[in-house]
């Protein structure tokens, strides 16, 4: 709970004793005589929600109702009804929404993994328009400094970029995050997002060449890192033929296989290529043979051989590799 919430709670005057609420009759929750999953609410919680129900049912879009939603949100930031009613009040009262961003910020620091907070923030930012783009990007950056993979924060950031702009430094930001943690798959995903959707980079076609180089560099540093492998594959999404035609792809697979460690992802990629009629070089064939448990492999088919190696070195997926053996498309 945030400091402010604690303060408010400790010095809290019961609503029933506040003169501005004297005319309101609280509405208790209609839980019935024998509720299931009944929650032993604190008195403060019950009272706040009883008054909330009163203003909600009366559709009272007033300053005091706005203040009350704030108190209710501090008690449970997951109550979407309260948030939605708050939006109606904010609109009705024409409140300065920049303050609202500060409020959401406080709540987010308590609990950054909650749909309601981020949805509300999106709503506020949309109303405020393009001039808050920088602030919003900065805010998510702050969240990522604590939790670099916060799903909601990433969705928010992508929305900000698309709706409000601010693409200029985004690829550099991805660089920065990946430099810090090359295993951060959220950063890889963001990189893909930027490369495919940024209006200033020219799109995937224009970026593919340099991105392939970037992914390959990352792979060679840590071949066990699945993220750049999937990224590399993604750069040729729906076009495995071109993936195989890029000589760097076969070459990085070969390098990793020759190194004889952490080569599961390399074999996974080779398998994908082979299933799409890729013609492997003799070097690649030899490298695969060198990994084969059987020095004179009985599986005449290279695909079968790759699957057999994977079954052995990647036992958690043995069933999957077994199945892949049976799904080899007809070779022409």
């Amino acid at each position, binding site marked *: 709970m945030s400091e402010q919430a604690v303060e408010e709670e400790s010095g809290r005057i019961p609503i029933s004793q506040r003169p501005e609420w004297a005319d309101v009759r609280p509405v208790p929750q209609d839980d019935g005589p024998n509720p299931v999953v009944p929650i032993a609410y604190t008195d403060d919680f019950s009272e706040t929600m009883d008054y909330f129900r009163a203003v909600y049912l009366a559709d009272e879009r007033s300053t005091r109702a706005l203040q009350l939603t704030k108190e209710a949100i501090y008690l449970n930031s997951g*109550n*979407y009804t309260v948030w939605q009613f708050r*939006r109606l009040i904010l609109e009705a009262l024409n409140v300065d929404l920049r303050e609202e961003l500060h409020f959401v910020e406080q709540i987010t620091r308590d609990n950054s993994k909650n749909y309601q907070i981020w949805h509300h923030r999106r709503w506020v930012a949309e109303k405020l328009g393009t001039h808050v783009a920088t602030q919003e990007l900065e805010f998510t950056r702050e969240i990522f400094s604590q939790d670099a993979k916060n799903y909601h924060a990433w969705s928010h950031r992508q929305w900000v970029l698309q709706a409000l702009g601010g693409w200029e430094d985004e690829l550099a930001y991805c660089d920065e995050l990946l430099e810090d943690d090359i295993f951060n798959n959220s950063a890889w995903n963001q990189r893909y997002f930027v490369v495919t959707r940024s209006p200033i980079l020219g799109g995937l076609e224009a970026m593919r060449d340099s991105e392939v180089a970037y992914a390959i560099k990352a792979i060679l540093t840590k071949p066990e890192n699945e993220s750049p492998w999937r990224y590399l594959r993604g750069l040729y999404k729906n076009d495995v033929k071109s993936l195989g035609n890029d000589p760097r792809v076969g070459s990085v697979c070969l390098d990793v296989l020759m190194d004889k460690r952490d080569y599961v992802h390399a074999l996974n990629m080779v398998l994908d290529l082979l299933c799409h009629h890729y013609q492997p070089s003799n070097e690649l064939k030899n490298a695969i043979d060198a990994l084969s448990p059987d020095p004179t492999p009985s599986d005449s088919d290279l695909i079968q051989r790759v699957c057999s190696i994977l079954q052995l070195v990647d036992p*958690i*997926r043995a*069933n999957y590799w077994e199945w892949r053996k049976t799904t080899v498309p007809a070779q022409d």
Partner: protein
Amino acid sequence: MENMSATKTQEEQWMVQNQVFRIYDLVCQLPPHAQSVNFELRRDNHIEYLIKSLKQLGPNFAVLDANRPWLCYWIIHSIALLGDCVDDKLENDVIEFLQRCQDPNGGYGGGPGQMPHLATTYAAINTLITVGGHKSLSSINREKLYDFLLRMKDTSGGFRMHDGGEVDVRACYTAISVAGVLNILDDRLIQNAGDYIVSCQTYEGGIAGEPGSEAHGGYTFCGLAAMVLINEVNRLDLPALTNWVVFRQGVECGFQGRTNKLVDGCYSFWQGGVAAIIQRLRLVVSEQMGLPNTSNFDSRTESDNDSSDSDGDQSSEGASSPANDSCQPIQKGKSNDSPRIGVNNNGYNFIRGPIGMRPIFNSMALQQYILLCSQEEAGFRDKPGKRRDHYHTCYVLSGLSICQYSNIKEADSPPLPRDVMGPYSNLLEPVHPLYNIVLDKFYEAYEFFARS
């Protein structure tokens, strides 16, 4: 220059996997009897924990005050998986309580008097179906619920969670799942939902919550299940999805939710459920992989409906690009008729059809993670070091059930003892993998709503 120091991802990963390996080592070193005790499902303890919670929750649960139908579902579904049920009075209390969460204009809110919300509607419907019986099933106002679902439909083809709420794949799934199981799914609800879900499949192969976001186990389950229910699953790139999901099972033996994230017991269901669904999509997957037609082995269940003019040919499209971006009008020209028989049978046909593939994930490994790392004295947790909760208890148990039945050849056949880790008394009830409702209760609801 190669980084010599470990990154944050690596550090956290190593910490967790070492903790997990320590547990496996400890159990390994125990004498046989003590060892086998560790693999036992502590059924009675779990049931006691669940029933207690149904009757009373402490003040800390105030943060879940807008999720009470979820608490009902997590608890009631867990109890059903464990082969038990609550007494008549408690069942009645559940029905009456959910009645108070039902909005007069359709749908269910997070508690009495709250706005209706798609997620809590899904939880409430699944709970009522799991309770079963005439009173429970007839307490659902389907006409109003249909209106609510339609109100939540977004111009993108997706759904929003509540009035003024967020649009995402979760909303698509909960809306479609509820409509499917209640026999109220129609063209107006389906319209363009497939476009939205397809746009959320990422370059990794899994599905994200929104277009552009990261592939994630929960959303992948939601997207895949929804696509099966609306009969458009062939529009997803299933080979890529399959490859992504099998790589989510790690050395800890459990599933992670996203690439390079930590293992978490709840993904036993989200990812395990995806694997279970794929096992029943052999023909579609084979087709997308460019395999010759092998349809004499099994037949696609989904084509078994009255809309063969537009759907039947999906299975003969051959090896065309699986991620077909073009939007095919589904069942066009039928929007005024009631197409209900066709679309609404998808969930039923899916479960009655053959299981064309052997498990693609490691069921034994996952059961080991569940029993040794997720299981507490009572209840289940994310991972060692975390505390139990109802959400994890529900989804870990659901995942355990998926594992135990992963090798059966057809619905309703019992698993072999060798497929159930620990004593055979660990066996749970089977679930319908698209809805996550125990199978018997699904059948009961199916019959009930087919009549009305």
